[in-house]
């Protein structure tokens, strides 16, 4: 899994030192507060990108940190703390997504409808070589069906391997590849009005 990138001079990976994590393991609440301060925006963002709903994302973030606090002893520092924390957060968000699935049976139909209404960016040959507006990408991601969005967010936004995506989603690696593939296709269809076909 990829490391969090710097959003400025205070990237979480730089702020979360092994000493800070060790202090948290010993129950140091001040260290814990610093660790939360350094990482919670990225963790909340991950949960929000998977769940879309800010309330659900906040709950998943709480679940993730509670689990992290209890499981800190098992963190051996083989991966970076932020990488480990992303996995814990992805797990919490996906559990939440499964839990609410029953309530949202009709979501896919609604999403298909919304997708067709999404104003796409101009589609020209020039656009193929240009970066798409990030706001438009965020909006388009929100309109993807849950199963495609979760796979795409974990793979392409947070850089998990296909194997990790499969484990998080509790599906086979082949199924994870299919979801990522279809998610990319749908996203591309949404963002480019005229297909180049």
């Amino acid at each position, binding site marked *: 899994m990829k490391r969090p990138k710097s959003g400025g001079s205070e990237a979480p990976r730089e702020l979360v030192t092994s000493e800070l994590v060790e202090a948290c393991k010993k129950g140091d609440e001040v260290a814990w507060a610093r660790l939360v*301060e350094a990482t*919670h925006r990225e963790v*909340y963002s991950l949960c929000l990108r998977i769940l879309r709903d800010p309330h659900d994302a906040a709950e998943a973030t*709480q679940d993730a*940190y509670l689990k992290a606090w209890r499981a800190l002893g098992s963190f051996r520092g083989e991966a970076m703390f932020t990488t480990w924390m992303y996995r814990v957060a992805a797990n919490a968000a996906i559990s939440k997504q499964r839990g609410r699935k029953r309530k949202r049976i009709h979501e896919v139909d609604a999403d298909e409808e919304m997708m067709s209404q999404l104003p796409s960016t101009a589609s020209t040959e020039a656009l193929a070589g240009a970066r798409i507006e990030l706001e438009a990408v965020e909006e388009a991601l929100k309109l993807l069906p849950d199963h495609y969005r979760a796979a795409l967010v974990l793979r392409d936004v947070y*850089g998990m391997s296909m194997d990790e995506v499969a484990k998080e989603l509790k599906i086979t690696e082949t199924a994870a590849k299919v979801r990522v593939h279809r998610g990319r296709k749908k*996203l*591309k269809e949404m963002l480019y009005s005229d297909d180049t076909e």
Partner: protein
Amino acid sequence: MRCAEVKEMIPALARESQPSLAVRRHLGKCRGCQQELETYRNLIASLQTLEARAVEPPPGLAAQLIAIPRGASTVDHLRSHVTRNRAAYAGGTAAAVAVAGAAAALLWRSRDRSPQRQRRTGKGRLATA
């Protein structure tokens, strides 16, 4: 190779898989497929950029997260207390069940010996006869 076949592979080619010789040959001469591949690469690059764009969490969330050790320690303390004293709790529960069972049995017997019930069942008459 036909465009349709190559385009079906492009979302994966943009990141995971290496193109075969046949695909490379097609891409070398097909401008449409080249553009398609470029589009997917840019899309993926944009998605990768999102990671660094953190969304501001709702106010108060950080405070709740910071307070987790206090809340968790209370629950964990209770849990570990119960775990440590599992035998005592199990014994206490078994004793309570035994006392309740004995009380129920006594109540049942006393009910069985009551004069009204003896009259109803005829046991009293048989005893006096």
